[in-house]
């Protein structure tokens, strides 16, 4: 999908490469006559000595760490961890607990990877919860009715891609704000799920198919394989986000869409791609939850759209797009899940969970804005 885009920039890339090499010689005649200061033949690029320019990239590893936008939220995570470890008298920091936290966080985590990625591009997807349930219910029905689970998974992913594509097309080509467009598709798919299933829960009876064990079976005492899916997906999408042209374009589009367009970025296609990724990951998270629980119902995942936005925001994604990181999105999810588990293990009523999440969101965003002001020198 990106081949064409990247191909089309090859011309620029090639020519500018030449440019930097030959700049000095190309204009030498003019410069020689007016200002013979610009190096000898072929001396296009001067020796790399600009202390001021490299200052930012340097500094001790610690200073660079502190400058990271995620630093603050990681610090919050560490503090929470310490508090819960003390309050739970040692049960919180055990490996079992963390296997459990990770496994419980995995589905939200996978949804958040897509939602956060999309948020960095400047868009929302409020339909992920409905997408999650709809795609997984279709898969559950297929597995229940004896179709090969792999076919069920492919259909699940196909539904997610389709829903994401629709969200993207409605937002990008009908030019409707994604908040509204996906609010619409959220209601639409929520209704379709109920119409199709009549609100029943579909349970997959043992023996559990191998594929479901691969997606969400136990791989340890408390730990399930879904944690590996989550971290693997976060890693791959994180590399795409931070280290590829597509990711660079996501940041540019979220930061200033007009500037991205003027620079030759394939804006419409990249925006739609972000919706498709988000939809696909929501559906995959649904499949993982089906594998985890062995059942699926229309109501499952219904809170995920807001929780995924919360995780992304806590992790440092700007609501307006252009800022955020994969590390932040993952840490944001971990913090939300840590709160849920930590409160219980500390003997606090779980009713407090939402109150604490609410406070953490506000504190985190205030902190990101502060850090942003110091590090980036402007609004974030």
């Amino acid at each position, binding site marked *: 999908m990106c081949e064409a885009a*990247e191909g089309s*920039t090859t*011309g*620029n*890339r090639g*020519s*500018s490469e*030449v*440019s*930097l090499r030959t*700049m000095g010689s*190309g*204009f030498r005649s*003019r*410069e020689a006559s*007016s*200002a013979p200061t610009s190096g000898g033949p072929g001396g296009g*690029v*001067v020796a*790399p000595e*600009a202390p*001021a*320019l*490299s*200052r*930012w*990239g340097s500094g001790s590893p610690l200073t660079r760490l502190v400058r990271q936008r995620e630093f603050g939220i990681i610090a919050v995570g560490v503090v929470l961890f310490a508090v819960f470890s003390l309050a739970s008298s040692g049960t919180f920091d055990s490996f079992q607990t963390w296997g459990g936290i990770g496994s419980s966080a995995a589905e939200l985590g996978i949804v958040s990877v897509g939602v956060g990625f999309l948020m960095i591009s400047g868009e929302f997807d409020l339909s992920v919860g409905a997408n999650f349930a709809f795609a997984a219910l279709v898969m559950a029905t297929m597995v229940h009715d004896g179709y090969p689970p792999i076919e069920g998974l492919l259909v699940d992913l196909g539904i997610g891609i389709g829903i994401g594509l629709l969200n993207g097309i409605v937002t990008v080509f009908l030019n409707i704000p994604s908040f509204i467009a996906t609010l619409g598709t959220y209601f639409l798919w929520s209704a379709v799920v109920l119409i199709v299933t009549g609100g029943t829960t579909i349970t997959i009876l043992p023996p559990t198919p191998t594929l479901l064990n691969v997606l969400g079976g136990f791989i340890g005492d408390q730990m399930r394989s879904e944690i590996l899916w989550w971290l693997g997906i976060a890693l791959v999408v994180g*590399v795409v986000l931070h*280290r*590829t*042209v597509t*990711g*660079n374009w996501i*940041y*540019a589009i*979220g*930061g*200033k869409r*007009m*500037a*991205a367009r*003027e*620079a*030759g*970025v394939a804006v419409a296609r990249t925006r739609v791609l972000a919706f498709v990724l988000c939809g696909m990951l929501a559906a995959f998270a649904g499949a993982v939850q089906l594998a985890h629980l062995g059942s699926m119902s229309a109501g499952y995942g219904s809170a995920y759209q807001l929780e995924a936005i919360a995780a992304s925001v806590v992790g440092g994604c*700007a609501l307006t797009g*252009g*800022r955020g990181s994969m590390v932040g999105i993952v840490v944001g999810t971990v913090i939300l899940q840590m709160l849920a588990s930590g409160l219980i293990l500390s003997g606090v009523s779980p009713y407090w969970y939402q109150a604490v999440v609410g406070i953490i969101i506000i504190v985190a965003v205030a902190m990101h804005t502060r850090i942003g002001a110091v590090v*980036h*020198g*402007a*609004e*974030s």
Partner: protein
Amino acid sequence: MSAPTTNDEQEHAARGPLWLEARSITKQFGAVIALSDVDVSFSLGEVVGLIGDNGSGKSTFVKILSGVYQASSGSLLVEGKPVRFHSAADARAMGVETVHQDLGLVDSMSIARNFFLGAERRKGPFLDLKRMERETSAMLREIGLGNLRAIGQDVSRLSGGERQAISIGRAVAFQRKMLILDEPTSALSIQETEKVFEFMRAARDRGLAVLAVMHNLTQVRDVADRFVVFYHGRKIADIVNTGQSEQDLAHYIIEGKLAEMGIEREQVDMGVIRAITTE
């Protein structure tokens, strides 16, 4: 028919070869004629200051040159060959880079990522950030921006003049032939304006044709090698900068020097005459 451009002006000093010619450009929006039969030529190594009041057609003209609008009639020639710019991407591919008022930079991204946006350096499937930073520093140093704070820093940290400089540097680095700046100094302090002018001259001295749309007559005198004056969709003057005073320039725009330039009365909209006599 258009305003006079004497031949000796074409042979002006250090100017390079003719690059882009706009011939008899007319642009209509419905019944409204925004540009009427405009001829302007641009040479490499020359800064042209395009001046005129609001509604004079200068931004319509710039949009035609940068591919945003298409002329209703008339033609564009690059190096003597007719071209058509169907989109901004077309114009850029031909070598015309336009820096808009909002500067076209992404505030939340680093200088280096902005510099190479849309033409990213890659190593295999991945971005080659080190190389982009290295090349950006080298390029900015070449146009005299070596002491810009830090290449990995967000653009939001930079001043308006520094942002202009990055946009200009980008045009030079990617070997564009023509750089169009839309009101490049309207939001800048005096010192910053002077800085930006230096970068514009640096771009010119590297052989680019530079077109700056400006409304400040004092400033345009400092940077332009040639003035092109629009009024009501027509070119009413096209003159080499020989150190005319601001008053002289104003006169070119609004006074009897139109006649001196050889413009016949009937070519000029009666509104001009009225404006001239009441001024």
